[in-house]
């Protein structure tokens, strides 16, 4: 990080570092503190959503508003499941392959579609997600609409020094997805602050100006799209071996929209946004599972309220609140 950008971050820079460290400690401690398996698996679910929301963060900033993320997650999930089921591969081999398969498919789809912009890209991806779901449910190898069962859990792996790690316990799966989340976020945040990240942001803010400065749009958009989908694919692979049953119903347009909701509710201001949004909303959904019939409504109300009070998301709220306090109607 160069001084020029650091100046702005200098305020509370160390505080931030400490905060991140503390957060990590807490996250690692979770399985010891929370013994209730249900709560652990909620945390697992939260982390899955955090990853998905975070992979959307750079995409939205670069002006790619996609509603096909669930479809790409599905590609990762099914390819990993089938590789282990049909080809008998070890999970540890299938996992990265699943990610790459997803990235490749993303490239093949991205090359024609990324030429479109804004609402058209949104609609195309929307359609792609529908097509993907319908294809999965009409193929035989994917088990069609009935779904694909009998998927192995993550294979045990010997780790020098620690010994063999079994993935029978929830804690183990939790740690796995936690590691994946950390990896994803670190990679994305790091890249975001490099010249590449700057180029992506530039494209998001003005393609015209970006290209005039010699930034090749197509290549940069495609690479980011593939990267994002790569992580979505990895997440999908974990999803498959965690739930051990896949059905098209898990990858509807809604499953693509929810991560966007987390991201938007959390806020696009920084990577903290998607993390916050996914945590709060997934948590909320679980809490409100108690009043089953009202769950979607509750979610909807949360969403609308946040959007009305803080259109820029929760992390943008404090500054916005100040604006409102001053009496200036930011909403208008």
């Amino acid at each position, binding site marked *: 990080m160069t001084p020029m950008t650091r100046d702005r971050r200098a305020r509370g820079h160390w505080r931030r570092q400490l905060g991140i460290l503390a957060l990590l400690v807490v996250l690692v401690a979770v399985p010891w503190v929370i013994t209730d398996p249900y709560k652990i698996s909620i945390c697992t679910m939260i982390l899955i959503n955090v990853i998905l929301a975070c992979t959307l963060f750079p995409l939205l900033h670069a002006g790619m508003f996609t509603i096909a993320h669930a479809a790409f997650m599905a590609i990762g999930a099914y390819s990993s499941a089938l590789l282990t089921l049909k080809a008998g591969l070890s999970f540890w081999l299938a996992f990265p392959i699943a990610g790459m398969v997803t990235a490749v498919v993303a490239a093949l789809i991205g090359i024609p579609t990324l030429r479109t912009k804004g609402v058209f890209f949104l609609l195309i991806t929307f359609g*792609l997600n529908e097509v993907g779901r319908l294809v999965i449910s009409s193929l035989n190898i994917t088990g069609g609409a009935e779904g694909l069962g009998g998927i192995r859990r993550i294979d045990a792996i010997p780790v020098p020094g620690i010994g063999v790690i079994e993935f029978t316990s929830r804690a183990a799966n939790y740690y796995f997805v936690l590691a994946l989340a950390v990896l994803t976020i670190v990679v994305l945040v790091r890249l975001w602050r490099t010249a590449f990240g700057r180029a992506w942001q530039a494209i998001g803010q003005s393609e015209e100006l970006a290209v005039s400065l010699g930034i090749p749009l197509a290549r940069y958009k495609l690479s980011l799209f593939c990267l994002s989908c790569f992580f979505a694919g990895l997440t999908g692979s974990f999803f498959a071996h965690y739930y051990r049953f896949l059905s098209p119903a898990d990858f509807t347009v809604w499953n693509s929209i929810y991560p966007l909701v987390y991201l938007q509710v959390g806020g696009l201001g920084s990577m903290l946004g998607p993390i916050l949004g996914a945590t709060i909303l997934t948590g909320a959904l679980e809490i409100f599972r108690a009043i089953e019939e009202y769950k979607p409504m509750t979610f909807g109300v949360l*969403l609308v309220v946040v*959007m009305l009070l803080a259109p820029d998301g929760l992390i943008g709220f404090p500054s916005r609140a100040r604006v409102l306090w001053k009496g200036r109607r930011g909403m208008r």
Partner: protein
Amino acid sequence: MGLDQVLQTILFCLVLGSYYTLIASGFTLVFGISRIFNFAHGELYMFGGFFLYYLIGMWSVNYFVALIVCGLAVGVMGVVLERLFYRPVRTHINATFMVAVGLLLIMSNLALVLFGPLIKKVPSPFAGSIRVSPTVSLSWERVAVIVGCAIVMSALHLFINHTRQGVALRAVAQDPDTAALMGMSVDRFRALAFFAGSFLAGVAAAIVIPVFYVDPFVGGNVMLRAMVVVILGGLGSIPGAVAGGFALGFIDGLGLTFFGYPAYTLGWVIVIVLMLIRPMGLMGKELG
């Protein structure tokens, strides 16, 4: 397949087309003026269906009266949505999208709580069916869908082209900024658009629901189809909605007849390809 079956196929393609046109026209109208994808449009349609059920099934109001009342009631709902939820976030595109999603969730769930999960049937005033050929027949209620679609669409055409409000609406749709410069209150026209669009949703429900049924879950499928139609025809274009509606009617109808259910993919595939080669759709204009 025999001639009579060809005829049969064509007939329900027409019915399907009219149905799609009815549900899509309101959706596209709203988008044309306000640039908002009102994902709650399908839910408005659903509410329209339930209103009709209570008006006719419970209080046995005359069908045609009920039809108008449905339109008005749903129209008012639309205005409320615009005023209370969409307007405050107008300047934030993403937030608008999210609000639309939220409203969709709230309304469908609300319907489930209010009306219960079971399907409700609205008796159609048009009983019996006409013989088109010795072997082919078409029920009057389906005829009503085709005719109803024709009437509603021509009425809409008159409104857009031959009333002051309508012409103004179109002006705003084409260029909100200039319209604003010319001292038109864009806000007022957005409200008007939401009213008109939602009114159409209510009327569509009143015409279509008697053929099928209404339950709290009909909104979703309606929405999906409407989106395909609107993209096919071009975002925000009313003639496009008609063209797209019937296009999809035939795509779905023929597809289902010949390939069975995977055919539901067909519409989307075509739409995606279309958007790649001609983003403005069949009859649409490029967005500003």
